[in-house]
């Protein structure tokens, strides 16, 4: 082990990190994002990846470099140097990992919680009843729509879903809005979703409501195809549901 | 061979530590049910609880614990007669306590049978405690029978110490369960 090893590993780490960052910052691995909130969640995801890359490449560099450079063919004849610890390395490591931890704790940890809090506005309240194995929706001033397979929502509307369950625990998940809340019997859990553009399940499978908590036989198929449409079309649909 | 096993190791200290850990572990089990009681019913409490009977059996159980303590003190001095007498007293009082719980159960089964929320926490908590009482009583009975056969003396009575400690623990748990169910 010579200083040269440290320099070489450092260079490799820098190169790998640069490659890794270039990849994670540009890679589009995300599903369709339906609103501002979803894009923010993806940004947070991307940020966490960007912070994870140097950590990942650091560990991998040290692992692989040591594996290649310090390996012995067969049983080592002699021992390695008797280094028990290294004050600078230990405190440096401790400081960096603590710093990174505090960073992600504050952002996107606490800031994410704040954004969640600030997203709580509604122009429309929809009651959601989960049951084995269907979703039931009640729009304001309307009677309940039972066993909904196709749901329409108006564009550019802040909606609050009041979610509960009639039997077991389910979970109300809108993948394209990155929003999810459990449907728990005896409780009403609210989530806030601000719709934006028109989009439909036909265009992307993540424009759906999916039950995300194991609830028995019908769990995987406990989904609703969603279509976000302009307000007039939505109103017409709702009236039509009421009539039918 | 056994020489290596226990060189420099005090088997009484080893057993004692294990028992303390077991008691701590049992405490965790009770704490889960006590937590459930507060989580589910908050400060609510039904009118029908027979608090008088509750106090009465609490006093009975405490006396049982005192007797168990005196029994242990007696055997530590080598006084087998007193040891047997107090052990028997602890057993009788412990049984009396269980009878009292039985009476409570009969009333409770009328006032708030299990599908009732308070019935759920009441029967599960007292039932869990009673099952530990039964275990403790069997253990006391065991050391009483062994004592009558001439086992245990001033030097060697770990069995007694262990059982009595467990008995104190079961009593202590009641001192938490009782206010939890009756007073809060």
């Amino acid at each position: 082990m010579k200083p040269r090893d440290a320099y070489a590993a450092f260079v490799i780490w820098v190169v790998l990190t640069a490659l890794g960052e270039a990849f994670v910052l540009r890679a589009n691995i995300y599903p369709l994002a339906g609103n501002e909130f979803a894009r923010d969640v993806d940004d947070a995801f991307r940020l966490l990846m960007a912070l994870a890359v140097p950590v990942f490449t650091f560990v991998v560099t040290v692992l692989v470099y040591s594996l290649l450079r310090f390996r012995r063919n067969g049983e080592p004849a002699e021992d390695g140097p008797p280094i028990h610890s290294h004050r600078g390395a230990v405190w440096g490591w401790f400081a960096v990992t603590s710093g990174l931890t505090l960073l992600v704790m504050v952002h996107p940890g606490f800031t994410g919680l704040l954004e969640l809090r600030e997203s709580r506005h509604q122009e429309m309240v929809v009651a959601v009843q989960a049951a084995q194995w269907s979703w039931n929706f009640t729009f304001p001033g309307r009677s309940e729509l039972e066993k909904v397979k196709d749901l329409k929502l108006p564009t550019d509307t802040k909606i609050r879903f009041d979610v509960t369950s009639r039997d077991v625990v389910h979970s109300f998940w809108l993948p394209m809005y990155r929003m999810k809340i459990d449907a728990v019997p005896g409780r009403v859990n609210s989530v806030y979703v601000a719709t934006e553009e028109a989009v439909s399940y036909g265009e992307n499978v993540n424009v759906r409501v999916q039950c995300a908590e194991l609830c028995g036989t019908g769990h995987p198929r406990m989904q609703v195809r969603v279509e976000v449409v302009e307000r007039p079309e939505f109103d017409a649909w709702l009236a039509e549901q009421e009539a039918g | 061979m056994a020489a290596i096993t226990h060189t420099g190791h005090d088997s009484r200290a080893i057993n004692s530590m294990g028992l303390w850990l077991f008691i701590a572990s049992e405490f965790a089990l009770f704490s889960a049910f006590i937590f459930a009681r507060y989580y589910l019913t908050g400060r609510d409490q039904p009118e029908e609880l027979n608090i008088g009977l509750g106090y009465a059996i609490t006093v009975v159980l405490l006396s049982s614990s005192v007797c168990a303590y005196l029994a242990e003190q007696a055997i530590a001095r080598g006084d087998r007669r007193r040891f047997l007498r107090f052990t028997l007293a602890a057993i009788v009082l412990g049984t009396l306590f269980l009878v009292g719980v039985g009476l409570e159960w009969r009333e409770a089964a009328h006032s708030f049978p299990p599908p009732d929320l308070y019935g759920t926490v009441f029967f599960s908590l007292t039932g869990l405690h009673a099952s530990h009482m039964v275990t403790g009583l069997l253990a006391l009975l065991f050391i009483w029978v062994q004592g009558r056969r001439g086992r245990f003396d001033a030097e060697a009575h770990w069995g007694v110490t262990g059982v009595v400690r467990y008995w104190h623990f079961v009593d202590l748990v009641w001192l938490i369960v009782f206010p939890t169910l009756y007073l809060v």
Partner: protein
Amino acid sequence: MAATALIARTRDWAFGPILRGLLTGLVGFSLGAGFTAGVRALAGADAIAFGPVIFGGYWFGLAGWLLGVGVWRTWAREWLGMPVDWTMRNGWQRYFDFTTDHKVIGVQYLVTFLGMFFLAGLLAMLMRIEHLTGGQVLFSPSQYNYVMSLHGITMIFVAVAAVIGGFGNYAVPIMIGAADMAYPRLNALSYWLAAPVPVLLLATFFAGGFDAGWTSYPPLAVENRDGQILFNLAFITLGLSSIAGSINFIVTVTKLRARGLSFGRLPIFVWGVFAMSLLGFFFTQYVAAAMMMTLLDRLFGMVFFDAAGGGDPLLYQHIFWFYSHPAVYIMGIPGLALALEVITHFSRKPLFAYRWVVGGILAITALSAVVWAHHMFTAGLSDIELFFFVTTTELISIPTGLIFLGALGTIWGGRLWLRTPMLFALAVIFNFLIGGLTGIFLADVFTDIHLQDTFFVVAHFHYTIVGAGIFGLFAGIYYWFPKITGRSYSEFWAKLHFWWMFLGFNMTFLPMFWLGLNGMNRRVASYPSDLEALNVVASLGGFFLGAGFLVFLANIVVSWVRGPAASANPWRARTLEWHTSSPPPVENFESEPEVVGHPYDYGTPGAVHAMLAGAEEEGG
């Protein structure tokens, strides 16, 4: 009183203890079931209702089984002042007996739980077949839920018990220079208490299966098919076993360390087992409580989790995760500690920053008690609860980082000997790195809301529990194989197995991160067909991974039967288990060991870890 003074019933038939146990178990079950049915009949209820009768019969059956298999002969007779009449057997028969030798018990655990591992692995293959397409392939949704649930709980039990039960039992007493565990008979009891668990799990098949996953959330787990009852009983039973085992480890490590072996000189694997026992002996009671409440709701009409009756399903989740989060460390940390142990010996360099690593393990132990609700971020917690649990959960990254510091600091500049145990140990570090970093996405509410209950989570916990726990298990198997069997395994086939498993594992689970992020929720028989391509990759990886274990099995069986003899210390490692013969004698050492130095003083000329009384120093 010493367990070893117990004697010989030499002419007993090999399977005598097990058969007697089955017989008394059956008698006990009949008594319990009959008693329950009788009480029900008196109370005017339907006498032979499946649930209550099975429940009542089980506890008596379990007691009968334990008495028959060995508790009566070795324990109860002594209590009752009757002559105790048996001895430990020497041949292979001792593996089928209530043997108190911790080394035998370790092997019993290893073989039993490896068997369960392969069984649950086969179930995983079936699940991957089902996932070859988005639609239905092999199973109806209800059959799939059963296979998935059975896979989950079996693997959880393996992860909880294989490393601690297997290598904790086998290696820890020798590593601390003890002749056995503190309570040898309790140790045997722990194993024979665990033995009915796989039987219960398999018996669920005849009770209609169960479909609530390993987490078995009520109300589903209160209303579903009766196999769930056996699941609850199995969980409680394994819980009792691991509580007894944990207490045994804590007392053993506290009280039976060889002279001179201070806590500051404890091998890191011993630290790992010790710290996790501190979690196990206390927190396991909470999962027992959760299972009991589920049974009380189901069988006795109580309403703990029944919202209509005033109960709350979230109560279960709180109690369950109060155990089950610490439990994920019980599954992971022993494997990580084992990896550090192996890395140190195969780098021939002191474990870097030993005290910090130990501090890290202890800090994880402490913090794990206050993070449970991160499994419930979408359950409807208040803002203040979310804030608290984000904070505590993120904090765990810091002590976890210290484990990486120890591993990297040790290999850097070492003299690496890349034998199979070392390869597995390094893979533990790599896998756990991925598992740990992806955990941050789940620790953070903002990103977790979307990822919760998706394949992202599935990938994450397989990287931690399999990547660290199970890879650690295999590191241990190869590391201690010469010690346990007295024979050497084939290095070629072992390395082939390593690379096969490493590639197969990553090919299976890496794609699942993307699948979860892109809308595939977990525990589903079918999924949107857009996600088929990567599912096929994961499935092929899974089949490849599964096939690799044939290499492992062939190598282990052939090597055990006729591998070349191994020396006492083939790795020239310094800890105490390498100071005695391979395999070690009953009670481990010919004479009493004394520890005079740190276990990891590589590179210091003349440094010695331990000496055996009367023997020449054998440091290394």
